[in-house]
């Protein structure tokens, strides 16, 4: 069966520091991968999605970037964090050709101080 991992589970970082969040998927090949941010425990904002290695698309411009160095690895990064980057970050995957059925990781709670 497929599983999705995210780490770390929680992170507290000062303003201006770099960020790296990692997401990996097991049990499937060539998945579509997604990064979402959930602010204030409510709505979900799609940040990035990837349909293959090195292929990244961004939903909205922001202080963050994403990379996909391997088929089942998706990394969310920032060079300098802002207070507004605080939130709950969720990684998700879907099978290629069925992008609408997504499965989510456990999430990373980021607090920027």
């Amino acid at each position, binding site marked *: 069966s497929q599983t999705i991992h995210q780490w770390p589970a929680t992170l507290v970082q000062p303003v201006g520091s770099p960020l790296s969040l990692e997401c990996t998927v097991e049990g499937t090949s060539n998945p579509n991968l997604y990064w979402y941010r959930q602010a204030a425990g409510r709505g*979900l904002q*799609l940040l990035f999605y990837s*349909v293959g290695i090195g292929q990244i*698309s961004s939903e909205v411009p922001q202080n963050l970037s994403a990379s996909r160095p391997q088929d089942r690895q998706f990394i969310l990064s920032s060079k300098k964090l802002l207070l507004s980057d605080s939130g709950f970050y*969720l990684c998700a995957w879907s099978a290629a050709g069925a992008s609408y*059925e997504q499965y*989510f990781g*456990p999430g990373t709670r980021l607090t920027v101080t």
Partner: protein
Amino acid sequence: AQSVAQPEDQVNVAEGNPLTVKCTYSVSGNPYLFWYVQYPNRGLQFLLKYITGDNLVKGSYGFEAEFNKSQTSFHLKKPSALVSDSALYFCAVRDWLGGNEKLTFGTGTRLTIIP
């Protein structure tokens, strides 16, 4: 773009009573609709989907949803609520971004089951 609306931020239901969490949609073409649940500090879990076929869709944990084309609704229901059903519920619709499929989520409804 496709969209879904969840008109209620909060729904409170007594344990054992039936529950309904509302969702309406606005799409061009045939809608692909979904419900997800999120427990505190956890990722979203898939509950059920409607793509085609029967208007009543059954999903996980005893939940079901009714697709109503004339009312453009896809309400989530359960005959008898449990305290453990308390969570944040999201309705979602298939959408498109740059030629690729994606999900567009509603704003979420917080369901509280009162013992």
